């Protein structure tokens, strides 16, 4: 077990090399409304079939390589979240899942830490409320370095009425 901090790039290279097709996920609910959990449960269903990609769920943090954090990191769960992270062997990846964990829904609430990054060193952020199973698959792919991150290049500026130009024939 290594505890020295490494950069996210090094971490992804190590994960891709060592856990190419066998990466175990521990989900951590830090006060979410359970819709994120429902979407995560759907990943194991036949339609999405997470296991074909080499991801598996594990109930024990000591067997986990990836920590999937949902919820706004309520203060009551802070110690348990730290202990879960410390129990994981390195190299390890933390993925914050959903708008709560990204600080969108309860940013100023006194009972929460606002976002998962306030307590844990988050490597990948997956937006969405809840993130769909497809978005979660893409996020897991980004976390292990198999899929490219696309949102960096997207401006969220829409062209002015492209549908009118198309339909004018």
């Amino acid at each position, binding site marked *: 077990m290594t505890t020295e901090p490494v950069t996210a790039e090094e971490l992804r290279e190590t994960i891709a090399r060592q856990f190419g097709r066998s990466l175990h996920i521990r989900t951590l609910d830090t006060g979410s409304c359970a819709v994120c959990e429902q979407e995560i449960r759907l990943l194991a269903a*036949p339609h999405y079939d997470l296991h074909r990609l080499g991801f598996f769920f594990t109930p024990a943090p000591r067997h986990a390589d990836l920590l999937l954090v949902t919820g706004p990191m309520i203060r009551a769960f802070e110690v348990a979240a730290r202990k879960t992270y410390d129990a994981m062997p390195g190299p390890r990846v933390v993925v914050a899942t959903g708008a709560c964990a990204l600080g969108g829904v309860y940013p100023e609430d006194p009972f929460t830490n606002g976002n998962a990054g306030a307590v844990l060193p988050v490597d*990948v952020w997956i937006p969405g409320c809840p993130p769909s199973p497809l978005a979660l698959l893409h996020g897991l792919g980004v976390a292990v370095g198999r899929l490219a991150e696309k*949102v960096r290049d997207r401006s969220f500026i*829409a062209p002015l009425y492209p549908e009118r130009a198309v339909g004018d024939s």
Partner: protein
Amino acid sequence: MTLWFIRGIRRGVVTTRYPARPDASAIDLPTPPAFRPRELTRQVADGVVAVCPSSALRRDGDVLVYDVGACTACGRCAAVAPRAVTSSGEFELAATGRSVLIKRIPIGEEAP
């Protein structure tokens, strides 16, 4: 029995091919909004910021600051300003940095 087995293997596959190929159900997903800067005025931007329930939007002078990570894709901004706000149709939003998800939309300019 053998025929049934072969037919089931051929036609009974429900699993998506998603990372390798696009998934057909992706068009039904609620996706975060995209903005038309030409249709945005300061009043429209303030109206959009006022209805946002998850602090994803704020106005900074002539720039609409849009936090994709905080957005819940509820569609209230599109309901208030249907000409200025449209659906982006993007669901592959995972980022390795939190600041990558914060977008700056210029108000009242031509789209590039």
